[in-house]
């Protein structure tokens, strides 16, 4: 038997008192797809960064084809054929796709040889069966296109080990399928694919091998054919996660949010929402199902006051509020979990405490007569950290130190620290690990049972079916169905989201 393409022996990496990787062993065979799964903070990303030369291990051996190596940075790694597609793309938005493709290895000595770059681009696009507008600035590309550009960049630098860090967390289901196709093709060409995820169905859809990590250690590595999602899930969490009962009690009160023929337009006046009407009542979760880009974002922004509607009426507790700003709506009891966690949801440079009180600091008890009480802010933050299980940072640390899942717990905790009249939740569990997902769903359920009206925008059919009282389907800016959850099946919902007649 030949040596594995990548071999790790007893890799250790510490960050202060935290052991991110604890004596990790890993063998990755050439020409296959190898998944690495685990909860947030299990050490997957650190391990991948070690393999990609971004982080140096404190101890242990790193072998390529059986020979020990020591990588001196990502440039060294790419010379040895190892490249990584990060969660946050390393693209320069202002430059064109073509310029990004060749960045750092621009063809031509002094004169930029555009023709050589274009030839390479055409060849790579063909190889991936992915078309791109090469002259467009990256800012104009969709997330899926950007990701494919990142992959092509690595192939341009002749990488044959490609590492993907949660590649599907930013993709729509359709784009994820496209990515899996690319991954299979690359593996069939003899390239080695490593990919991090915490979505088990993905593992069983594309990978041949799966390594499970928990608390910095490798718990198990198995052939996908020899295991099953239940077993892997148990290995990830360390116990059986019994899904909690999230069924609605059905005590629905008066309507809180009502939309009457609401329309919205995009920047060039194109319609994004067309005469949308529905209601959300006390004690009710109404799910908005739809594939991304069918008007969900506009709907959320119109309800929150982040966007002016082009027509129609928005009522909060029976009073028109289409003209009101975000703060006025929040003062009326509206809470908001944004899909844009790093932008609208939280400020990464501000402290955890500042983020925790960002929607409450103007009111007593945190402030009196315009003066902030630092003691109360700290206690409120500590209370929130405890109640919502935010791990990985003290109140004074910048929010940047938190993992995505823990940052989302902080946001959810802030928005639900008081029971709101209306909660607008956009993709609240996107990119959150299994345990966090279960927790956040539980919190939404609890808020509903306490009488909150909840508008839940999601692409996850399971999440919608599990939590909602009613589901409306948004397709090309129109409500194409408004059904109680009992009359919806996963298949029917999928068909409705794709725009097929119910």
């Amino acid at each position, binding site marked *: 038997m030949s040596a594995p393409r990548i071999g790790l022996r007893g890799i250790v990496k510490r960050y202060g008192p935290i052991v991110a990787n604890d004596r990790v062993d890993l063998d990755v065979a050439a020409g296959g797809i190898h998944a690495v799964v685990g909860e947030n903070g299990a050490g997957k990303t650190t391990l991948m960064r070690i393999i990609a030369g971004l982080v140096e291990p404190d101890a242990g051996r790193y072998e390529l084809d059986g020979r020990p190596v020591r990588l001196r940075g*990502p*440039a060294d790694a*790419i010379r040895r054929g190892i490249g990584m597609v990060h969660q946050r*793309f*390393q*693209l*320069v*938005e*202002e*430059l064109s796709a073509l*310029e*990004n493709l*060749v*960045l*750092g*290895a*621009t*063809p*031509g*000595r*002094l*004169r*930029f040889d555009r023709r050589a770059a274009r030839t390479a681009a055409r060849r790579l696009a063909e190889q991936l069966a992915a078309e791109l507008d090469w002259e467009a600035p990256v*800012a*104009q*590309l*969709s*997330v*899926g*296109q*950007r990701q494919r550009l990142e992959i092509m*960049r690595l192939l341009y630098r002749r990488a044959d080990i490609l590492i993907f860090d949660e590649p599907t967390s*930013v993709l729509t289901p359709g784009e994820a399928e496209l990515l899996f196709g690319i991954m299979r093709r690359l593996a069939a060409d003899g390239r080695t694919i490593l990919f991090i995820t915490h979505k088990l169905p993905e593992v069983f859809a594309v990978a041949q091998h799966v390594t499970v990590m928990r608390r910095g250690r490798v718990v198990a590595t198995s052939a996908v054919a020899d295991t099953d999602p239940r077993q892997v899930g148990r290995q990830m969490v360390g116990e059986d996660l019994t899904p909690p009962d999230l069924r609605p009690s059905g005590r629905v009160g008066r309507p809180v949010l009502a939309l009457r023929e609401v329309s919205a337009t*995009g*920047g*060039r006046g194109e319609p*994004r929402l067309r005469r949308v009407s529905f209601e959300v009542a006390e004690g009710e979760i109404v799910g908005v199902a739809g594939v*991304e*880009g069918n008007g969900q*974002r*506009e709907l959320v922004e119109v309800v929150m006051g982040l*966007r002016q509607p082009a027509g129609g009426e928005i009522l909060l507790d029976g009073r028109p509020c289409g003209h009101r700003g975000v703060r006025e709506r929040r003062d009326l009891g509206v809470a908001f979990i944004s*899909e*844009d966690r790093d932008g609208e949801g939280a400020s990464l440079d501000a402290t955890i405490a500042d983020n925790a009180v960002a929607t409450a600091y103007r009111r007593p008890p945190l402030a009196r007569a315009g003066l902030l009480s630092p003691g109360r802010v700290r206690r409120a933050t500590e209370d929130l950290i405890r109640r919502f299980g935010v791990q990985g940072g003290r109140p004074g640390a910048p929010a940047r130190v938190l993992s995505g899942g823990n940052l989302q717990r902080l946001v959810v905790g802030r928005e639900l620290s008081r029971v709101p009249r209306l909660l607008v939740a956009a993709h609240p569990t996107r990119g959150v690990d299994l345990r966090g997902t279960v927790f956040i769903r539980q919190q939404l359920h609890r808020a509903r049972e306490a009488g909150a009206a909840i508008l839940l925008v999601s692409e996850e059919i399971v999440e919608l079916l599990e939590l909602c009282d009613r589901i409306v389907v948004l397709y090309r800016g129109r409500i194409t169905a408004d059904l109680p959850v009992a009359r919806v099946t996963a298949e029917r919902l999928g068909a409705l989201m794709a725009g097929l007649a119910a």
Partner: protein
Amino acid sequence: MPDALQAVLAAAAPASASILLAAMGGAVNRQGGIVNVGLEAKMLVGAFVAVICGAATSSSALGALAAAAAGALVGSAFSLVVTRLGANEIVAGLGLNLAAVGLFGYLLPVVFGVSATLSPPGLVGLPLLRIPLLDAVPFLGPVLSGHDPLTYVSWMVVPLTWLLLYRTTWGVSLRATGADEEAARAAGIRTLLLRDLSTAWAGALAGLAGAQLSLGLVQLFNKQMTGGRGFIALAAFYFGDARPGLTALAALVFGVFEAASFRLQGGELAPQLVQMLPYLAVVASLLVVGARRRRLRRRRELTPEPGR
């Protein structure tokens, strides 16, 4: 009227040359991610070095070259302070400007024994080039011909800057550095070095701009001779969004206003008012830019970003 227009345009070419040179350097620097507030100081140093070296060697060409070298040197020092020592580029730039003013306020009386203006013996100015054929074209001839060599250099620097930014491997890397340093570094680009080089380049052009003032427009050095042209250059590349064509256009427009203000002096208007003209043009243009960007930003906010 055509005569007056012709005279203003003919005066605008040399009047705008120093702004154009400094602005093109500033644009390259800006594309690399550094806002160069210290152009004014580098122009002043260039003007001084040009006069000293020009007089010592009796050669205006050597004076201009020395000015460029001095500007590049000051630019490099400024750059290292920003890129390696982590100083704030705005504060460092303003400091550099103040230091230059102080330096010449000290040097002129103490070393050269003059209060504000230095005109050493043996100083020769830049020659005026008459371009055959072009010279004979009606109206355009006097506008385009008969200027100092650095004015022509300033015109050539515009396409050169465009080539540098958009048609060289260096330019691609520099723009990547300015737009997203982290991503550029991850791609293996030596971002700090590129920034230093772009600042040195901006310094060299600002030095040349200074030489054009002290050897081209006049043949002397005055400690206030830059008169805010470094800042007008800043406004020009800000107006042009650091793109060569628009930046050059802005620099030329500012030059036209400056030439017009020369013409109008001695008329009925108060000279102070007339001298304000170029600076008012700058303020007006910045208002236009501000309004335009605001409108653009608002439109972008309403358009959902792709894929979000």
